[in-house]
């Protein structure tokens, strides 16, 4: 099947890109593996969830879902895109097997994933991601086993702690890498979005009202337990996130929820070898884009947190701009009509910058975090590769992340380096004594996400999960 435009991702960025392009007259196909639009932040509750609570995020998500449903956009939910090829052919695995669409233009809006900097015990069952907890609370009407310690950094900490309390759970402590001062410095910028500031204060009050201890400038030292997480030990850190040697505290837990910010996915621009640069504030390698989301590859656009962490409000605007740019480039919008539609989004996006910088700043990786990972701790969960093994590879001559993959299998497992990639790259750079930029970026390979070959072909086993071929050195 052919269309004018394919949009990959139905979150705030992709959803709005599809709407803007379709409103300008393009035929648009939108792919997302989730059952409904909304992406991570406006994730729809699955159908049987208990009394879906009313929240600003819920309302925004419903508004996007309604707008898409009444638009001419060809909606392909429940489809995992596993291949994106030249001329822009997209292959996706859906309920009826493989399907493909071709279009001269493609907008990649695949979002971000979570970074968790490893510590001993982080692989134990009962330790889950912070962003993962938002999915449980928002979409599954579930909360982790209590008592819960919520640890890491960024605005999701308070949101998740308050969400667990609201759902009737027990939060033993909130452990924040940031100091109270870091937050105070960020707050004036957060105040540029009063509704969110109020939400943040609401979360904070909810935590305070329950007498939950909030430990600023602390981090998880280790999690103990045999077959699941039973105890978390925390300790004070300095402003770089390195442990100060101050006294440890421990909490008996049912679960640890932990996250250290987000990493932009960006696999589609990388697959096409679009120009990228490393941007620590934005979470990792990001494609170089013009003001409308054009990558260095003709016809390929990108928007949202997948091209640098900026948050949902910026994703909406950048998605809209990318959709308009695609329509303009396809000759469906005159210069003046394009300007009329794009100008408001551009102005609003510029106004958001202080807010998104403040949010990104609270979530950005700190130098001392990676330095604190013990040598025997697993970094790559898929292949059980430890920090020590990564350092040994550096000594043995690995100078770049794709070589590291060959030396250690780090990043070669089914998650394709999404969980460990940024941490492993930082460790490699540190052990070589070079900047993070110098060790390069992970080459993206199809499949974009693993798909069982059985669903494409026939019966299969674990070893049949397509795992990307090693990158050429």
């Amino acid at each position, binding site marked *: 099947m052919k269309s004018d435009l394919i949009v990959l991702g139905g979150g705030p960025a992709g959803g709005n890109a599809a709407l803007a392009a379709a409103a300008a007259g393009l035929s648009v196909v939108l792919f997302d*593996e989730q059952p409904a639009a909304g992406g991570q932040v406006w994730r729809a509750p699955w159908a049987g969830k208990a009394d879906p609570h009313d929240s600003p995020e819920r309302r925004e998500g419903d508004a996007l879902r309604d707008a898409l449903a009444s638009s001419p956009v060809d909606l392909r939910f429940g489809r995992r895109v596993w291949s994106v090829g030249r001329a822009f052919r997209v292959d996706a695995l859906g309920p009826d097997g493989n399907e493909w669409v071709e279009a001269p233009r493609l907008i990649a809006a695949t979002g971000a994933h*979570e970074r968790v900097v490893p510590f001993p015990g982080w692989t134990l*069952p009962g330790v*889950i991601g912070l962003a993962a907890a938002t999915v449980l609370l928002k979409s599954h009407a579930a909360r982790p*086993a209590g008592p819960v310690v919520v640890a890491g950094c960024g605005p999701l900490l308070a949101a998740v702690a308050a969400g667990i309390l609201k*759902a009737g759970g027990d939060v033993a402590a909130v452990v924040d890498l940031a100091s109270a001062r870091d937050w105070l410095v960020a707050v004036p910028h957060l105040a540029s979005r009063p509704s969110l500031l109020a939400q943040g204060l609401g979360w904070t009050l909810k935590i305070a009202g329950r007498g939950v201890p909030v430990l600023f400038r602390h981090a998880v030292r280790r999690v103990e337990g045999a077959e699941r997480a039973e105890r978390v030990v925390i300790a004070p850190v300095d402003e770089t996130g390195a442990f100060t040697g101050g006294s440890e505290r421990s909490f008996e837990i049912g679960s640890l929820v932990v996250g250290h910010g987000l990493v932009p996915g960006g696999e589609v621009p990388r697959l096409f070898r679009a120009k990228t640069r490393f941007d620590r504030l934005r979470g990792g390698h990001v494609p170089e884009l013009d003001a409308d989301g054009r990558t260095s590859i003709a016809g390929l656009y990108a928007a949202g947190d997948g091209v640098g962490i900026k948050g949902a409000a910026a994703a909406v605007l950048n998605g809209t701009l990318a959709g308009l740019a695609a329509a303009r480039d396809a000759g469906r919008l005159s210069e003046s009509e394009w300007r009329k539609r794009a100008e408001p989004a551009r102005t609003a996006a510029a106004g958001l910058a202080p807010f998104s910088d403040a949010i990104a700043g609270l979530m950005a990786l700190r130098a001392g975090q990676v330095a604190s990972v013990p040598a025997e701790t*697993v970094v790559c969960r*898929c292949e059980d590769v430890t920090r020590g093994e990564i350092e040994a590879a550096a000594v043995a001559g690995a100078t770049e992340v794709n070589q590291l993959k060959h030396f250690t299998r780090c990043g070669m*497992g089914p998650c394709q380096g999404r969980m460990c990639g940024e941490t492993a790259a930082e460790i490699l750079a540190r052990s070589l004594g070079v900047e993070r930029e110098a060790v390069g970026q992970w080459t993206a390979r199809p499949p974009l996400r693993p798909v069982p070959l059985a669903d494409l072909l026939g019966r299969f086993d674990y070893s049949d999960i397509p795992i990307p071929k090693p990158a050429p050195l």
Partner: protein
Amino acid sequence: MIERDGAFHRRAAPGARMVELTVDGRAVTAPEGEPLATALAAAGILLLRRSPRAGAPRGAFCFMGVCQECAIFVDGALRQACMTPVAAGMQVELRGVP
């Protein structure tokens, strides 16, 4: 002594259809359509598999289809439990988990 919950908590919708699935021969009840990883966690089954190299215990981690820690056998095929909706009569196998 602090009481530790054995399982995750979930509130099923009042009208949800509760169905039965089998996990290594054991019957588990969950609302139809719920992501399987959540259904298992709510039944106290957090340990889903062991890591291939070190044999270390693992469970669902990202709940968004990225980490692959929840890859288990559902009706004979390897599936990501966090992306697989519960269906009546589903046969779940945690191969390699004692």
